């Protein structure tokens, strides 16, 4: 009898091109997404060495990090941003790579357009020069972020040199309480295992609470897996996965589709497969989450209060909490719901999908953005923007006082003009509350889309369960 294998084991083993004596593996890459920030040096490397892109047909490019989210008809004001996007356009033309440019309706955040186009498929290996590539694991694709030298390696050889990862399973059983969503689930997981808890592992999410999540929710969970230190998250493909992918532009069609689904059904982990680490959470125990510090592990339920450094046993963590509170300008013991916000951001590869915009609009409907609060909704792609407009969500949000923007990474990392000013505080659906992430001196609280909308209309961090 063959040894029971995990989903990860199956994907890994079916992509091995070569294994060296020391265990270093050469793995084949099925799908490669590129964007303007981490690819120019890779193309430059190819050019200098006289190399070609080995499989341009397995490569898809989009501009997302630098693009303006306001009117684009006049191009990009910021010279450096413009040069970077022009370089992507030029490189894609020269090397024959398909590009969704800034004015293409299909343009959007790289981790949103991959699934949306059916480029992301179960059982594949998928990489991108971006740590949030973990997002695509929601489809049972082994997807992880790589550096620019590795981008060049994939462009040139369609392979990567990697050591195998270890298997971890996080099981969440039961029903998530009302008002608690995928974002809260993953923030609770990160709070539980810490930002380095998954280092060296691929995390497979399992249990009824994960099965019950929509594909959008599973993407949110896998997206933030990197915030728990794991390069990749995985969810076993199921009927929801196939439903989501069926008929997408780059999904297999006709007989190939039937054949693919049959194969995908063999992917879930075998009963009795071994995991080096197991973590279990009860869905019922999870409340809406909010971060208080400058690391995604600095998380508390919205019903909680700002912790004190002395609450932490580890001296290094105590020191880090002290610095975080100083940066965030928060006093220990302050109830989270008493913290006022200046900015609200709904968007990013974490929460820029249609379901997220619906959740924000549901709270915004019939309410107004509080005085002094600037609130942005940035759809994850042009197609999502269109859909939200058709569903009337954009009107609801605009009516409530939200700014309705063009798609891109925007205020998640503030590489374009969308920044939280120094000393200002934001409730954000993005994935990182690092110092300066949303702008130098900006103070970020990570929340779900509904919680972000609740903060926008109350002017403070708020418990969404009291509004809906």
């Amino acid at each position, binding site marked *: 009898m063959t040894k029971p294998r995990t989903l990860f084991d199956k994907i890994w083993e079916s992509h091995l091109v070569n294994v060296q004596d020391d265990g270093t593996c*050469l793995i084949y890459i099925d799908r490669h997404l590129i964007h303007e920030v981490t690819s120019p040096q890779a193309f430059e490397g190819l050019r200098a060495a006289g190399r070609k892109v080995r499989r341009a047909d397995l490569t898809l490019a989009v501009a997302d990090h630098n693009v303006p989210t306001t009117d684009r008809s006049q191009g990009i004001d910021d010279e450096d941003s413009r040069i970077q996007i022009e370089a992507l356009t030029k490189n894609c033309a020269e090397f024959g790579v398909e590009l969704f440019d800034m004015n293409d309706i299909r343009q959007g955040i790289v981790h949103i357009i991959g699934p949306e186009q059916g480029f992301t498929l179960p059982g594949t290996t998928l990489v991108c020069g971006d740590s949030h590539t973990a997002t695509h694991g929601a489809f049972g694709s082994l997807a992880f*972020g790589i550096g620019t030298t590795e981008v060049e390696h994939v462009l040139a050889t369609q392979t990567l040199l990697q050591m195998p990862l270890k298997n971890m399973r996080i099981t969440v059983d039961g029903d998530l309480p009302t008002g608690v969503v995928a974002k809260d689930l993953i923030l609770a997981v990160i709070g539980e295992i810490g930002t380095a808890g998954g280092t060296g592992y691929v995390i497979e999410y399992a249990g009824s609470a994960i099965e019950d999540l929509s594909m959008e929710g599973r993407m949110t969970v896998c997206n933030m897996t990197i915030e728990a230190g794991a390069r990749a998250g995985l969810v076993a493909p199921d009927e929801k996965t196939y439903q989501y992918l069926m008929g997408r532009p780059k999904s297999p069609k006709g007989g190939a*589709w039937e054949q693919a689904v049959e194969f995908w059904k063999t992917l879930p982990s075998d009963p009795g497969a071994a995991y080096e680490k197991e973590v279990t959470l009860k869905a019922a125990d999870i409340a809406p989450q909010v971060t208080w510090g400058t690391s995604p592990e600095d998380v508390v339920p919205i019903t909680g209060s700002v912790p004190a450094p002395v609450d932490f046993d580890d001296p290094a963590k105590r020191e880090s909490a002290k610095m975080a509170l100083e940066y965030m300008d928060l006093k220990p013991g302050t109830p989270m719901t008493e913290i006022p916000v200046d900015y609200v951001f709904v968007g990013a590869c974490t929460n820029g999908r249609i379901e997220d915009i619906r959740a924000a609009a549901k709270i915004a409907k019939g309410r107004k953005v509080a005085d002094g609060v600037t609130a942005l909704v940035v759809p994850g792609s042009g197609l999502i923007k269109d859909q939200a407009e058709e569903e009337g969500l954009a009107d609801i949000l605009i009516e409530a006082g939200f700014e309705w923007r063009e798609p891109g990474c925007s205020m998640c990392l503030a590489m374009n003009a969308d920044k939280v000013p120094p000393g200002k505080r934001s409730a954000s659906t993005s994935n990182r509350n690092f110092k300066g992430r949303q702008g130098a001196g900006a103070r970020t609280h990570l929340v779900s889309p509904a919680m972000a909308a609740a903060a926008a209309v109350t002017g403070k961090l708020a418990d969404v369960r009291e509004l809906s």
Partner: protein
Amino acid sequence: MEKFTQLTGVAAPLDMINVDTDMVIPKQFLKTIGRTGLGPSLFFEMRYLDDGSENPDFVLNKPQYRDAKILIAGDNFGCGSSREHAPWALLDFGITCVIAPSFADIFYNNCFKNGILPITLPRQDVEKLLDDAERGANATLTIDLEAQTIRGPNGGEISFDVEEFKKHCLLNGLDDIALTMENEAKIADFEKGHKTAQPWLAG
């Protein structure tokens, strides 16, 4: 890529956990289309004051650490973004070795692609090195990659682990891509079999 064989230099202590790559090199410097020139922007937010002048309290601005070649830091160094600009900035500054109790995976891999040696050591060893590094210019360390040892200022020696293949590439300054291209026949064979097994994946 430059070879990494032996390195003797001053070690700067950065006793913080979770130093993320946004801290190593913030977003405004990711707009470059080159790999060099990022050294002056390394640790930008901590290194400079609001008026643009140097923050005298930051370790790399102190006279004894301005030419540091080694950085000693806390747990989970390099977490966050995959930006290779982080190792590029370290390299441009002159730091080619980082020692910490643990590293984030992507940063760790990125270092090896740029001739930087990241060394993972047990926390008590890192704490001792941090103490030594506090002594500034007297805290010169010698890293010997071939022997996998760190020699401290008092002659004490600590050994470290490193994956064999990564070590081989660093010692010889090897370009991964050229090595992989030697496997072209294997890649082409794999592709043929893969196309039969999962024909729907062809672009």
